[in-house]
């Protein structure tokens, strides 16, 4: 009978494990009073709840990203100068109110530079580093092309500009401005995401080479005329410009986040933070397949 009792006890103990909740972290010392007004107290726990609801996921995401960036991106003199320039600009724009804000937050200028501005620059650089390391695959997917595109609203203007460009009498910028075009005449990066030009023009750009020179294209609705000149369709020749042009694409920044958060083993153990990140930054939740599906759906 003793054996039977043991078996039943073990069974009951196992049952206790059933229906466990998701893990939720509590703040030690949450009942510690920070301030008291009349008969009401504000505790550390009160503030934790309020702060978590307003900036919890952003703070965790930012701190995790900064921890990764600190490992991956070296702080350069240019970053320090840029951070100092940003601080100077804030002081100029906001005057005393900015230094009062720093002071009320318990920060010196140096703290603000080291804890906020430089980490922010490192984080920006992180996406660039990811793109440099995965440039071949990214270039294959987004097909960046370096080209000059001039847009005209009359065929006469387009033809006049084309003649001047072909005989070399005008630069692209001059050909545009002297023939009623608002185009800058500068080189730009065209990718598969570019939608600022008519499909007929984009089609020519994507099939042309740098040897083809200037080509006149009429839009599909016949109301716009383009002069296009492909400068290069070898992305390695304009890698920096291509990276700059592609760095704002959400799918790429998400892929960068996914890559580095996996590399550094970001793992959430608190259901409240997990749910908050699922809403705000699902690409950061690399710990389970559900998050991967959310990311893939983007």
């Amino acid at each position: 009978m003793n054996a039977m009792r043991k078996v039943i006890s073990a069974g009951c103990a196992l049952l206790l494990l059933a229906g466990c909740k998701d893990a939720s972290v509590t703040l030690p010392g949450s009942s510690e009073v920070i301030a008291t007004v009349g008969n009401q107290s504000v505790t550390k726990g009160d503030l934790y709840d309020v702060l978590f609801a307003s900036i919890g996921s952003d703070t965790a995401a930012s701190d995790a990203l900064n921890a990764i960036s600190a490992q991956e991106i070296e702080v350069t003199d240019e970053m320090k100068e840029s951070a100092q320039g940003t601080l100077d600009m804030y002081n100029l724009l906001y005057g005393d109110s900015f230094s009062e804000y720093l002071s009320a937050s318990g920060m010196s200028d140096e703290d603000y530079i080291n804890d906020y501005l430089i980490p922010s620059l490192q984080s920006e650089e992180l996406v660039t580093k990811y793109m440099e390391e995965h440039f071949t695959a990214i270039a294959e997917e987004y097909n960046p092309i370096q080209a000059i595109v001039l847009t005209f609203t009359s065929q006469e203007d387009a033809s006049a500009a084309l003649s001047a460009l072909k005989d070399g009498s005008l630069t692209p910028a001059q050909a545009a401005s002297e023939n009623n075009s608002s185009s800058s005449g500068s080189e730009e990066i065209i990718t598969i995401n570019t939608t600022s030009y008519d499909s007929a023009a984009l089609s020519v750009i994507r099939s042309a080479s740098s040897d083809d020179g200037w080509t006149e294209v009429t839009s599909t609705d016949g109301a716009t005329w383009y002069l296009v000149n492909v400068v290069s369709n070898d992305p390695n020749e304009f890698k920096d410009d291509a990276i700059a042009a592609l760095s704002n694409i959400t799918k790429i920044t998400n892929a960068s986040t996914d890559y580095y958060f996996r590399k550094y083993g970001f793992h959430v153990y608190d259901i409240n933070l997990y749910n908050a990140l699922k809403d705000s930054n699902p690409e950061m939740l690399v710990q389970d397949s559900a998050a991967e599906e959310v990311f893939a759906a983007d």
Partner: protein
Amino acid sequence: MNSFIKKNWFVSLLVVVFAVISVYYIYDSNKGKLKGKTANGEGVVYSINGEDVTATGLYDSMYKNNGTAALAEAITRAVADQAVETTDLMKDNAASQSTSILNNYLSTYGSDYRTTLDAQLQGLGYAGTDELEAYLINYFKQSELTAQYAEQHYDDLKIRNVSYILIKFEDGNSGEGTPTEDEQARMDAVDEALASGKTFEEAAAEFSEDASTASNGGVLGTLDANTTTLDSAFQQASLSLKEGEISDWVYSENFGYFLIQCNASTPEGLEAFYRAQNGLTEDIEISKAGIYDSLLSSYDTTLVNQAIWDTAEELGISFTDPDTEAAVKQYLGLED
């Protein structure tokens, strides 16, 4: 053991079946649950690069980002709750504004609007959408408390409600302080209209060259000595007037020439002017917050901090850490 199983084979079979079902149930009910972690006896919120960040670590980081503001907000809420009684007027206003806010959120955020509003109210220390009216009532209490403070310190703050007529500089005139012939002619027309018996409101509607106030009889609103958003010459002239007085023409290098009428320079006068402007007879209940709304919402937006702090001191306020108190006072823009 073997003999026990042989002897009680049916019971043993039941136990095995029970155990198998139990194990499967445990596995199934825990599947997909987020597993926790502890480090040095404390719950870990997340880990990155092998480093565990605990709730204390996250709290410290959040506090550094926004802790002082959150604490000041919590104190403000506690002060207003204790210092001002909830009136029926506040409840009615909260109910109607709550309906309007919920409709706006629904049209802006769609059917999931409560999630957005929940998060915003939780960030202010409320449980969520269900406490929207409580949030609004606390906001009304803060306004009421500040209005009461303004009334108690009326003379120190030099509170004035004013109207004005503006004659702008003639095109090309840099405004040296001496009116051109054309500017003087326009000013004379205003003076003559007033001398002939027209009210200031009628003259403002007819002659003021500031379209934003002319249609309202020239009424600007209620300002005080803390106001920083108005032309300094205009403000100084306004603060020096008594109820019913009209200034001489005031030169403002930024705008032109102002003629200013003081509508109220006493609490009683301000209430009377507010009632007259809004068609509210003596028997209609009004809030102090309504009377001082123009001052609190436009011309002295920092007065609320002073009012809250003074009231907090009356209620009794204490901090565990003096540095925290100094930071909160600095955040509220109060002298230490």
